[in-house]
């Protein structure tokens, strides 16, 4: 408990947490706007189906997205993409700061049992992740209500699927802190870890989508479609999709993938840290 208090204090006594919070909120506003425009023009008001055959898979997906439940979960979890990235970066920084500012020495002198330090960091990072989730959700709920009412749709906040999507979104925020901590232990350099993680998170996600699409369309390897769900960022979106869309695995597949990533990075990171010389 003392250690968790200490880790909280480490986060609170620097500028990082509020700079990240501002960054996450600005990007939240941006992604909500993009999602709203996308829904408005892409899903709800597509001129004559936009040339999409309603009987194709894409058409079925669009139809499934247009239901109030799917729309509500989609809109209310807006900002997840960037929010998770900031939580991951916060996780990375809680570890790499110790090396960058050479505080690892003092930290491990105070607590020679290094696993405890990592657990405390995970708890503190997870708490800040959940806090960011609470704040973003508190903003997206009224924003979703206003947007959907404007579209003439009654938002379904009471629907179990929507509630599940919102709660799992919170779990995603906590798990990404843990993934960040794992990355921070694996890549000690502050700049190296943050840049690698951001590139993999943004460019990597898009790259995997493109590669999968190309392989699928050019070589007709339909099975590669399933590989993309192993990407933690894509899995996070799947986990919070509310309704099962046609052609997508169930939401809990996304949850399992994410938990696996968090567990693997966290455990490997901790095992490495326990052995590593602090010089």
């Amino acid at each position: 408990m003392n250690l968790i208090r200490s880790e909280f204090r480490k986060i609170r006594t620097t500028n990082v947490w509020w700079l990240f919070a501002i960054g996450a909120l600005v990007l939240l506003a941006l992604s909500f706007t993009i999602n709203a425009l996308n829904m408005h023009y892409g899903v709800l008001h597509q001129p004559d189906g936009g040339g999409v055959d309603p009987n194709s898979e894409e058409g079925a997906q669009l139809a499934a997205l247009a239901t109030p439940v799917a729309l509500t979960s989609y809109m209310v979890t807006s900002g997840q993409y960037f929010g998770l990235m900031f939580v991951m970066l916060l996780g990375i920084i809680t570890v790499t700061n110790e090396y960058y500012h050479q505080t690892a020495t003092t930290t491990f002198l105070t607590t020679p049992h290094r696993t405890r330090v990592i657990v405390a960091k995970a708890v503190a990072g997870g708490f800040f992740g959940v806090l960011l989730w609470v704040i973003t959700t508190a903003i997206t709920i009224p924003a979703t209500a206003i947007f959907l009412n404007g579209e003439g749709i009654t938002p379904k906040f009471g629907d179990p699927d929507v509630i599940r999507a919102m709660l799992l979104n919170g779990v995603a925020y906590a798990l990404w802190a843990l993934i960040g901590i794992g990355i921070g232990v694996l890549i000690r350099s502050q700049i190296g870890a943050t840049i690698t993680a951001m590139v993999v998170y943004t460019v990597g996600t898009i790259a995997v989508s493109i590669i999968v699409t190309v392989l699928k369309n050019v070589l007709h390897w339909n099975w590669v479609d399933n590989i993309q769900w192993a990407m933690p960022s894509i899995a996070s979106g799947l986990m919070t999709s509310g309704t099962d869309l046609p052609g997508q695995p169930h939401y809990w597949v996304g949850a399992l993938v994410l938990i696996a990533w968090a567990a693997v990075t966290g455990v490997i990171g901790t095992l490495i840290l326990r052995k590593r010389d602090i010089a």
Partner: protein
Amino acid sequence: MVAVDGLVHTVPMGSEITDGEIVVSGLTKHYKQVRAVDGLSFTVKPGRVTGFLGPNGAGKTTTLRMVLNLVTPTAGTATIGGSRYADLAAPLQSVGAVLEASSAHKGRTGRNHLRVLCAAAGLPDTRADEVLELVGLAPAAKRKFKGYSLGMKQRLGIAAAMLGDPQVLILDEPANGLDPEGIRWMRDFLQALAKRGRTILVSSHLLSEMELLADDVVIIAAGRLVAQGSVEEIIGNASSVAKVRVRTPKPDALLAALTGATAERPEDGVLLLSGVTAEQVGDAALAAGVALHELVAEMPDLERVFLDLTAGKEAIR
């Protein structure tokens, strides 16, 4: 003058270990290419300031880090008050360590840096202000670490080490970056703590400072023990090599009058004699009617002894 007497004991003194003896036994660390520390054994007694000396690259820092469980030894053990550092129930309340000056988050204030440690060690936050007062850093408590001078950083490191009011204090090159006033302050501070029964282990390569500060010394070179003992013993053992420096217009006449002396002639008219005392030289000169312009007994200092002892040991490996 020394602030130690103003130390407010909100933490029971030496609450975790009663005897702060440090025992290093067969400690060894091999890196890929180098044996940084090679079968090193020594003990550090409570109630004394022990200087840990060695040329750069001798393995001082690696040894201290192995004692503190930061670096895993290839072989051997190190205990403090009978237990390994990792097994101490409350490490910060037993052992304080100052290892590197620049070890705080640059954007955090000195006070918050200490409070982070207070929280982790289960100490009350008020300890942060008490130790800041103790090291004379209270006026800069709310300033960010990046604005601290090297000397202030060093004081903050000592403040952090004193948070748990430990029985044992381990410092790696603490004089680095301190001005003469700061060095004097630290000397008085550490000696006062030793007088109160604490164990103080200080590594340094500043030998003149060590001679003033330390009661005992442990000298290592190339990862191995070269000598261990009180400063008097170490210098005393070397006093057989004490020399007498004489300046005289008639060096040859003086040499003829001396028995059992070996002489070097570093410059014209100067003799550097070993095997005789200054008294014998003076008496012999009077008897032989040789004028002396200078007669000095050159007592070896720690620096001379250190250089003699570590000579020929590769410093850089």
